[in-house]
């Protein structure tokens, strides 16, 4: 059940990435798939983080025009690192989560850009301003998404309890 939910979340993130960015220009630099991988890692641990990062990264690479495996490797390592942070530290307040999302985005960019430069496949002339912008964007969306997902079940339960009984 949990596996199906994780896969559905990843598929939803991919659908959002390929659809929303086509209509809303401002979201084009966000990486919704990375946000979902970090979310799953923080909530379910490093093993789930590794598996989610691998699956999501491979599908994202397959749908992109780059070398298959580079994005997946970056997301796998980020999933593991975020999962470890989630198990070793208390990451329940918005600020620590914001820091984790920022760190995950920077780590992902460093591995991704580093591998492409190392293999001589692409050139990046001063990518760090764009990476910093993407990290902040991912962190804001990630933290807000986290808060909404935590707040939603309680809200629905309160609504159910407050509803009058129909006879």
């Amino acid at each position, binding site marked *: 059940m949990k596996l199906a939910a994780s896969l559905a979340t990843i598929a939803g993130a991919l659908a959002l*990435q390929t659809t929303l960015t086509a209509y809303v220009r401002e979201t084009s630099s966000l990486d919704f798939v990375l946000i979902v991988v970090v979310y799953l890692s923080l909530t379910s641990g490093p093993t789930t983080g590794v*598996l989610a990062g691998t699956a999501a990264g491979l*599908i994202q690479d*397959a749908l992109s*025009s*780059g070398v298959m495996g*580079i994005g997946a*490797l970056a997301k796998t390592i980020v999933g593991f690192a975020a999962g470890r942070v989630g198990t070793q530290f208390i990451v329940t307040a918005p600020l620590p989560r914001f820091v984790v999302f920022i760190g995950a985005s920077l780590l992902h960019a460093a591995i991704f850009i580093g591998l492409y430069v190392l293999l001589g*496949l692409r050139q990046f002339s001063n990518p760090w301003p764009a990476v910093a912008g993407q990290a902040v964007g991912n962190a804001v969306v990630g933290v807000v998404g986290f808060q909404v997902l935590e707040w939603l079940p309680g809200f629905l339960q309160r609504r159910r309890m407050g509803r009058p009984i129909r006879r």
Partner: protein
Amino acid sequence: MALADIKQRPGTVLGVAVVLHLVLISVQVNTATGIPIFRALTFGTFSEVQRMITGAVTGVEELWSGYFALRGVNDENAALRQQLQDLQIKLQEERALAQRTEDLRQLLELRQRAELETTAAEIIAAGASPEFRTVTIDKGTGDRVDADMAVLSPSGVVGRVILPSARASKVQLLIDRNAAAGAIIERSRAQGVVVGAGGETLRMDYVPGTADVKAGDLVVTSGIDGIYPKGFVIGTVETVERGPGSYHEIRVSPAVDFSRLEEVLVVLTPPPGHDTAPAKGERP
């Protein structure tokens, strides 16, 4: 190994995953030919999902525009009629001008450029990763679309087809870091190569420092890459600076607004000199 055991060994899982990824990457980098089956299958399957999502979004848009956005349509009709009359007069002026241009062209005995066979395509999805600037169009090999075919818009050059499937194709935009096109400065005929610079701009490389280039010059395709037909607009020169070597550093503003693309034309006629497709991941 039971599932519970795997969950207790995240380090092992990470190690296995990293090794598999590295093998996968090294296999691709070493061979660099053909399209991986996994990629083609995933793209083919996901393009159908993208088509459905786009269909649903379009349906909602049509419902909105067909029922809720019709207020004030009478006033709009009157304005459009007036606009039509103005345009008809303008059209007559343009026809006269075109006829005069045609006469001059024939006088100069310029060779008439061959008609390009094209097919119109709709963009059904954006790129799956923000690091790569690609879009998915709704035409594929079933519509005679093939790899390395040029993609144009009324404003200028859009990019090239890199991954065709039966009913959809992936198009690499010219602003992608891996994209390139043979280019020429229209005014001075200085040649170079336009490449994606990341972001929304282009860079023109390999233009000698002695060449006559200035801001505002029009950059068009040269046709030497064997992909893009000659003479189509790429953009205008934004800045020209003296580079560290013997070349200019030229930044080009693309003619196409890549964030507002909705429909494009795929050129089905291969340009003269087109032979084999370049290796995967390489610039043409």
